């Protein structure tokens, strides 16, 4: 019997798993996909929000500000990469200016630190690519950026290192309540558990329904993005927001943690929770709007586009509650859910504690996670030392991001199993650069075959069915010597 079972390994589920891993408990995480952080947590803006735009007095305001303040410490323990680059909300006229003054007031009420109203010359001195017609801005020095999936993966790996059991490719299909505990079913498999945490993101209303709670309804709200080549990353140094108008937050421009320029998201209700399609109109809206803040974005430098879905509900605030004895719902965790996630986890622990789950600290708990080997952070001497030990660190596989074979093999050996090209991409960054895997996909697949004992034709991009190769060529089938030599 598990003490706690967490449904959904997004950033929220992973943050809770990591927090629970500090205590003497038997914890399971059940995730339908082949990797953690494969839902909303992989497709968002990656911003650690300051917390000035949440309505004062709400959970969103409280947990965002609290979460924000936890990132420095979290990064020192988990080494996922965090850049406290600051943010601007740009105002282009008197009306905008009045709005940012209101935001400033809200920020003060919410307890946000390091805010100031800055003038045009300050903005242009620090952000020379901003539209020179800018009037003023709200600067917030406590905002920052992270790579959202690397954060979630780091939380998950640290939780797994401390004994939390992750079950991937395990979709929850039914939940039963028997004798004061729960049986969670995933097709034929059963998990008995005292407590259930429902952190299934977009699907959390459906999970609640499985346990007889019918009152929630999530409507997905899509946000589309364009990601650009690193060589124009410095078009924005801090995060550049637009002044919110008539309920729309506007389009932001940011340099991602790894240095690409990114613009987005728009906001459109959709009806299908799997609808991650980008649309021509949506992408046009994003680029047209972004150009109002930064006019000279070179659209020929786009390397990819993607979309993410917000879990929106009629109610504004997050729902975090033990709706039924032993069953904690986290529903409607839309923005700023990423920022809030570490504080949400503490909130959930508090709920569990009050509900009677004993929290005895684990003696041998390790709060540090060994970071992935990242050669771009090393000095030349360190690089040479590493290569002297293992030559595979001298073999570049992904040319665009300069990722070596050694760095790829390193991410395959962690406590959360890696099975797909996308899982490697999110950890080692191979296939993520300007050629989007054109050159290195074949090499990455060779490494997967060798290290994970897979067949080329069994390798998926992401979920089951997303195969890369359909079979061997006629020549290779014929066992031609030439091919066996190259393979």
């Amino acid at each position, binding site marked *: 019997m598990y003490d706690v079972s967490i449904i959904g390994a997004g950033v929220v589920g992973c943050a809770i798993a990591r927090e629970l891993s500090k205590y003497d408990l038997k914890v399971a995480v059940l995730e339908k996909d082949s990797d953690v952080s494969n839902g909303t947590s992989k497709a968002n803006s990656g911003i650690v929000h300051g917390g000035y735009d949440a309505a004062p007095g709400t959970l969103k305001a409280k947990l965002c500000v609290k979460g924000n303040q936890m990132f420095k410490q979290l990064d020192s323990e988990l080494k996922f990469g965090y850049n406290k680059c600051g943010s601007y909300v740009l105002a282009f006229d008197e009306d905008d200016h009045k709005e940012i003054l209101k935001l400033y007031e809200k920020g003060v009420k919410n307890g946000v630190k390091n805010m100031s109203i800055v003038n045009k010359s300050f903005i242009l001195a620090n952000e020379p690519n901003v539209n020179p017609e800018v009037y003023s801005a709200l600067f917030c020095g406590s905002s920052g950026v992270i790579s959202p999936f690397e954060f979630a993966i780091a939380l998950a790996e640290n939780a797994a290192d401390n004994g939390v059991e992750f079950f991937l490719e395990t979709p929850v299909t039914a939940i039963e309540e028997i004798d004061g505990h729960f049986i969670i079913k995933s097709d034929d498999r059963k998990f008995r558990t005292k407590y259930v945490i429902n952190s299934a993101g977009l699907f959390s209303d459906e999970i609640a329904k499985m346990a007889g709670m019918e009152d929630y309804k999530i409507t997905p709200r899509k946000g589309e993005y364009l990601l650009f080549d690193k060589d124009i990353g410095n078009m924005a140094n801090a995060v550049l927001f637009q002044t919110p108008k008539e309920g729309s937050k506007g389009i932001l421009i940011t340099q991602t943690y790894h240095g690409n320029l990114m613009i987005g998201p728009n906001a459109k209700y959709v009806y299908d929770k799997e609808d991650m*399609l980008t649309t021509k109109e949506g992408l046009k809206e994003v680029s047209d709007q972004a150009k109002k803040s930064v006019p000279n974005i070179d659209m020929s430098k786009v390397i990819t586009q993607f979309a993410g879905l917000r879990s929106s509900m009629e109610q504004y605030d997050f729902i975090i509650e033990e709706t039924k004895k032993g069953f904690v719902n986290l529903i409607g965790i839309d923005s700023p859910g990423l920022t809030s996630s570490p504080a949400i986890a503490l909130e959930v622990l508090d709920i569990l504690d009050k509900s009677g789950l004993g929290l005895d600290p684990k003696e041998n708990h390790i709060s540090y996670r060994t970071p992935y080997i990242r050669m771009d952070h090393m000095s030349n001497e360190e690089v040479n030392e590493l290569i002297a030990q293992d030559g595979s660190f*001298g*073999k570049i596989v992904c040319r665009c991001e*300069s990722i070596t074979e050694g760095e790829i093999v390193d991410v395959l050996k962690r406590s959360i199993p890696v099975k797909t090209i996308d899982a490697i991409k999110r950890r080692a960054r191979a296939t993520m650069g300007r*050629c989007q895997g054109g050159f290195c996909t074949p090499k990455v697949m060779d490494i997967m075959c060798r290290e994970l004992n897979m067949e080329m034709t069994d390798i998926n991009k992401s979920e089951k069915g997303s195969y890369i190769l359909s*079979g*061997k060529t006629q020549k290779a089938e014929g066992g031609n010597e030439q091919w066996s030599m190259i393979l």
Partner: protein
Amino acid sequence: MVYDLIVVGGGPAGLAAALKAYDEGIKDILIIERDYVLGGILNQCIHNGFGLHKFKEELTGPEYSEKYIERLKDTSIKVKTETMVLKVTEDREVHTLNEKEGFQVLKAKSLILAMGCRERTRGAISIAGARPSGVFTAGTAQRFINLEGYMPGKEVVILGSGDIGLIMARRMTLEGANVKCVLELMPYSNGLTRNIVQCLDDYDIPLKLSHTVVSVHGDKRLEGITVAKVDENLQIIDGSQEYISCDTLLLSVGLIPENELSNVCDIEIDKTTKGPVVSDTRETSKKGIFACGNVLHVHDLVDYVSEEAEIAAVGAAKFIKNSAAEQKSIKTKGCNGVTYVVPQKVGLDDQDKVVKMYLRVNKVYDNSKIKVTAGGVEIASKKYDRLIPGEMASINLVKSKLKGIDMDEVVFEVEGA
């Protein structure tokens, strides 16, 4: 230690440049290549069609490069393969990484950049829709089939009628795949005419001109695409949308010179060619650093790559021997139908010289003429039966004709465009 010459990239451009520099008397040469073999993109081009101009015979890609690689053995030219150049600097330092020597900084009196190009991706042309597996650039598919022995899929549509797309249409058909059609945005193909005949017509593969992909469907593997017709302004014609089911979409939508190294070195880049701005010796804006081949501008025929590499080698050899005199130079420019001209600058002092100028046009021109003027005076012209964007054209510029003309630039245009 300082090499006389370091060549970055061991494709046809790098090979030809190194060998020519050797013939010019430079013996201390190093070629650096990131792949485990020399030959560049030619290694995966196992079809015929290389060397018709240069060797007057039809060779496959590997056969063409083999002619050069063979010759290397009789020279003192050194080669480092599986070595990535991470950076080049203005002072001609070359930062490298490999398995055996780790990170190193090498120096040379002169550098020749021959890094080739890479393919444009789906992102670069902003195709909306889902992001399933099954969308490949044509070159990646070529690599899987020809080098790894695997098929990327069975029901195939190809977007872009550039040469790689055309060649892959044939290749996949021969391997038993069903190539449903080749779509081309423009009203004409960007590929060589002989490839359209030999790769599409001979296999009854339809070429749909003025068509593009508007959306991609399928949440795991590609299931189909929506295609549409476009008008003369390349805008989608409403109502022309059509769904085609397929498990594979190959993109052959153009190549981009790989100038990340040039950018970091702050070499001036031509916005149109996306390659360095060079003089007629193929010297870039940085002294002693030369460029040639696809890194300079995308070539359709390897023969011209080799030719251009030799020009760069002669320039580099002169520079190394300190016999390259500072020259006054004049800018060249394409307009009225001519999209670009390489070289972008021509030296004015060595007036006995003839410079072969390479250019491309913006659309198809039948029975037309390229006119070259300087300060309003016509100094050269050449007639062509047919000029098409997919085939590079050339015209000779006799420098002595520039003598005494008061001019800012030399202008190339299609007469009457």
